[in-house]
Structures are given as C-alpha cells and as structure tokens.
C-alpha cells in the first residue's frame, strides 16, 4: 500500500528521523494553524507523484494565506485524486537538498540505498544516482565510506549516516518495499530533515503489523467507474475464486480474461492484432458460476462494444463447465450481436463447450469457440477478423 506523506512521516518519527513541525487536517476538521516562524508549506496529501508541478504544494509566509491554501487544496484534484488530507508544515531554511531511498534490487536480490546530490526533483531526471547494495547486513562504516565517496561538501556525514541507519531499520522493521525521502534537507541550522516521504508497504507482511492500520485508499488516481464498483462487489462475501478485478479502459473489445500472466499476454495480443480493449480483468482460482455470470454482465454492460474475447490458458483447477455456464447465463440476458470468441481448456471443458454451443445456437450468436489446439493468442486474430466484418456490415468504423 502506498502511504500518504503524513502517514510515512509518522513512521519516520517512530524511528527518530527528523521531520518538520506539522499539523495534518482532514476535510471535515476546523482549520486551526500553529504559528510557524519560518513560514508554511501547505501540501495536498495524495499518493501520486509530481504533486508540486500540479499545484499540490503551496509555500507561503503568512498564516492567513496558509489557511486559505488549505481550503483551496481541499477543493482541488491532484492528478485526478480528490484531496482528503492536507499537511501544513513549517518551512525549512534549506542549505542543500538531497535524494535518498531504500528499496530492493531485483537483480542483486538485496536492499539497495540510493542517494543523489540533486534532491527535490523527479527521480527520472536524476543523473547522479549513487547506489549501495546491502547484500548481508547494514554496516555503518561501509555506509560512511560510501557517503564519503559521493563527495558531499560541508555537511555532517555522521549525522547523515545515523539517519540512514534509522531509515534502514524502519525499512526492515516495518516491512517496506520502498522508502524514499525527496528532498532530504540539510538545513542552515546544520540538521538533516526528511521533508517528504514516499512509502510503499509490503502487503504480504501485514500479518506482522496487525496494529498498523491505514484506511483504504484509491491508489490509482482515478475515480472508480460504476462498473468498477459493481465488479468489486462480486468478490465480497464470497471467498471462492476471484471475479472482481475489473479496470475500465477506453476501447471497444470486451475482455473476459483468466489468469494473471495470461491476461497480460492476451491484452498484448489483442493490441498486436489491432484491437482496443474495453477493460482489463483477471478471473481465476476456480470461481463459482455466479461470479463469472456477474463479471460477464459487468463487462458486457459497457456501451459501444464491437466484440468479446473470453480467453485463458489450460486451467489446472478452474472448472470450465462451471465458468462457461456462468458466461452463457449472462449471454442469454444480454444477447450480444457482436462477435464473440472463446478460447479455453481444462477440467470438464467438453461440457463447457457443449453449453456454449447450445447457447450460441439458441440465441443465434456470432460465437466461435476453441480448445487448446488453437494457441491462446492466435484466437485474437480470429476475433479481430470477425470484428472487422461486423463493423463493415453495421457501417461502423
């Protein structure tokens, strides 16, 4: 889970990493600012990056202006995110700004520290990223040597190493995937201060942090569509299989895709054959009939569809007769005119295909089905040919 800046800073405080004096306001709360002698940094709390360039941060000297800024930020959207919290901090007297992060290096297979002398800007633009792998364990001397080699002038390196050591403890103890401080400020008062926090927690380690509860949030910077909300309900109160993952996209080919890796692969295939997906989904884990039925209904309720592709690999556990029954029930209600291609195999697939054939015949659907003898991604080509004919016949383009 991505944490808001103020939540990340609460973790920093727990590990004695200095942060500016601050107050966080929720939308409903009365704004009552403290006196900050050095001025105010008013920051919208959203998990999207590049908050500064999109007006999510306001710097001001006056308390009245700061209060006004808080109200304005609450009425704004930052990269599509509504602002639910605003953090007001004391502005820092900056001597230098740096970048610091800890994450896992996927190739070295260990934590890696990154440091840049050009803090405060976008990571993509950083040309001087210094890296130090931590293959076995944190070693203060090694980190100090590394900091020395970077050539930082006129800053207190042993204090910096201490901050990094605390950050590393925080990274491990809290089971984080990313801990980023940008900017990491060295102040005119010769202090190291974490002026921002970007934290990604490891959801798989939640069982070790039962006391640490962050309210659920929209991490994708996009207000969910009606269909996305409907899909979410599919998995509520029913733990059997997964049927509620649905992301709406702008295309016109309905995608009923099974399996994680297979869904990615098939989305790519559709694009390669000139199709535009109307949505992304992954179902799997042997879902009951109702889940596939509901998911199909959600997917096919999007207006303007010109085709439907129900595709997955050869299942190990997922019962194909059960999932096809759910699919067929939804087809009976919707009766699509546009072409449908199904490619699937696995347990009880022949019964599944019998159900499909019967439904297609009864409803006079433009439906083709294939078992595993048709390569999964090749069936995208079949569908797109049918879609082109359909569009031609309908005078669509």
């Amino acid at each position, binding site marked *: 889970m991505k944490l808001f800046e103020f939540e990340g800073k609460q973790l920093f405080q727990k590990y004695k990493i200095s942060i500016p004096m601050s107050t966080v306001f929720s939308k409903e709360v009365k704004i009552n600012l403290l006196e900050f002698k050095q001025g105010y940094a008013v920051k919208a709390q959203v998990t999207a*990056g590049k908050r500064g360039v999109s007006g999510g941060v306001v710097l001001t000297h006056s308390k009245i202006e700061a209060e006004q800024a808080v109200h304005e930020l609450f009425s704004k959207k930052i990269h599509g995110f509504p602002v639910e919290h605003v953090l007001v901090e004391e502005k820092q007297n900056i001597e230098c700004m740096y970048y610091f992060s800890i994450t896992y290096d996927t190739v070295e297979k260990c934590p890696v520290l990154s440091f840049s002398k050009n803090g405060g800007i976008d990571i993509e633009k950083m040309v001087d990223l210094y890296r130090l792998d931590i293959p076995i364990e944190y070693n203060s001397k090694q980190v100090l040597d590394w900091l020395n080699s970077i050539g930082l002038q006129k800053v207190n390196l042993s204090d910096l190493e201490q901050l990094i050591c605390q950050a590393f403890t925080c990274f491990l103890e809290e089971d984080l995937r990313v801990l980023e401080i940008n900017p990491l400020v060295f102040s005119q008062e010769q202090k190291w201060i974490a002026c921002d926090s*970007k934290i990604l927690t490891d959801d*798989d*380690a939640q069982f070790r942090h039962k006391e640490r509860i962050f309210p659920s949030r929209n991490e*994708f910077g996009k207000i969910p569509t009606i269909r996305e909300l409907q899909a979410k309900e599919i998995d509520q109160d029913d733990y059997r299989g997964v049927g509620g993952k649905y992301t709406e996209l702008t295309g016109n080919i309905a995608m009923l895709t099974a399996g994680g*890796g297979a869904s990615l692969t098939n*989305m790519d295939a559709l694009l390669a054959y000139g199709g535009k997906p109307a949505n992304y989904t992954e179902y*799997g884990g042997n879902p009951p009939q109702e889940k596939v039925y509901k998911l199909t209904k959600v997917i096919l309720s999007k207006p303007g569809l010109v085709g439907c592709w129900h595709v997955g690999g050869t299942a190990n556990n997922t019962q194909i007769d059960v999932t096809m029954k759910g699919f067929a029930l939804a087809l009976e209600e919707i009766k699509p005119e546009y072409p449908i291609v199904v490619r699937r195999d696995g347990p009880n697939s022949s019964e599944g295909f019998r159900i499909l054939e019967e439904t297609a015949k009864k409803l006079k659907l433009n439906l083709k089905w294939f078992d595993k003898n048709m390569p999964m991604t090749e069936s995208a080509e079949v569908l797109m040919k049918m879609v082109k004919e359909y569009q031609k016949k309908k005078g669509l383009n």
Partner: protein
Amino acid sequence: MSILVGKGSRILIQGITGREASMILPDMLKYGSKVLAGVTPGKGGQTIQGIPVYDSVKEALDIHSEINTSLVYVPPFAAKQACMEALDNGIHLLNVVTERVPVRDSWAIIKKAKELNARVIGPTSLGIISPGKCKLGPIGGNDPSSVYQEGSIGVMSKSGGMTTETSWVLRLNDFGQSTAVGLGGDVLMGSMFTDLLPLFNEDQQTKAIVIFGELGGLQENAVAEYVKHFGQPKPIVAFIAGKFSEHLPQAIFGHAGAIIQGGKDSPHEKIKELETAGIRVAKVHHEIGEILKEVL
C-alpha cells in the same frame, strides 16, 4: 539430462498435511516422483497417502538421508522458518510454492541459501518438471503429459500459468521440454533467469531456452547483460508480457518498482535490451514456436 530435478530427485514435502500439498501429492506420486517424506510440526508419526510425516526436517533426514530436494508448501508466515530449517539441515534444492511471502523473508532465505551454496526456486513457483523423469509441485496438474513431453527446450517463466501455456505452444510446434521451471514473479526471486541459464547451457538435452518475462523487476534486463558479457552458446527466445500497460495512463498500472527503476523495467525497455543482445523476442506469444523453428 535435464536440470534441477530428475530421476535422482529424492523429495521432502514441507507442509505435506496441508490442503493443497495433499491435493498435489497423488499427482506427483503417479508421475513417478520419489517423495520420501513430509514434515508438518505436530503431525509427526502420521502417514499421508503412504508417505511418512515427521515433526521436523532433521527427523525426516535421520531416517531418509537420501533426501536432496524440498518442496515448500507451508503458509506464508511460516515460509522463512521452513526454508531455514531445510537449508540448515543441508538440503541443497528448495522449491517454494508458497505465495505472498514477505520480501524481507525472501531476502533472508536468499542470503542463507547463498551462504550455504544452495539453490532456491520461488517463492510463488508453480513447480519444476523434467518430463518423463520428475514432477515437483503442482506444475502440469493431474495430467502433465498432455502438455509436458520429454524434449530439447528449457522453459523458464515468471508466471505460473504461462509456464504451462508456453510449454503447450512448444508442443503445438512439435517441441518437448528438457525442464520447465516456474520461477515465480516475486520482487526477490530465489532464482532468476540468469541463475539457471548456465545450467541449461551445460545440459546436453537442452538445445534452446524459452523465457517468459513480465513487466516489473530487472531480471529480464539481466539476461541481456549476461548474454552480452558471457556470450550465449544456445539460442534464447523470449516473450515479455504487459506491453499494453504502456499504452495506458501511468496512474492505472503504475507499479512500485517503477518509482526507483526509472522505467528500465518496462516491457518496451526489456525487449529493446534483449534484442540488442541478439535475443529473439516474440511479439505475440504463440510466435515463440515459429521463432524456435527458425533459430534451431
């Protein structure tokens, strides 16, 4: 010969009495895999489908000293402990099927394995199969030979389901597999493509290697680096899934690694690096078969 698992594999299953492990056990036995013992703390003394269960790895090894491979099938919170126990007792090949292992625990397991010169495949692995010789884990389900047949192609995949689907595309093109390995797509992988490439390169049965990669992580980029640095005696054909995500607004499919890795872990960048290293990358998944015919 094949790699990792074969006729000589003598298998321990950690977490053998669990629901999923006991479901796949008969499939493994039917295939002829030599499962000698299982471990579930507190369930020692039982037998499950004829296989004796012990309280600890040590007790199992005291009786079955031939064990050289452990299939780890325990819940996520117990994975680290189970792997440490297997490693500490000298088992040199661990296949971790458990999903959702915390990254910090994976790091600890990987460190320990490195220290002891042992090999870990997974977490989140679908298993390993050397067709005709040994099936370890759920790979291939209850009818492995419908997809997996002895042959000359080494298969490595970050995605479980796509290990089988990729092997199936090979079959449709009359290729069998030397060994197919579900590597699991975790942030930290016990073994990544480049860890197993040397094994496939040395294996006489393997004539070419197929890699299924995905968006995220830099393990595919490491393949390009490896080939550029060491050369590559056998052809590699790759497929990288997730290209569509680059056509979407970043906000929708933006993922954690991208924050730090500056876009190098995008499918586009991975494909570019692999192709620059002379590796053929299939644009659409099933083209893997045709490309293999061209390169062999």
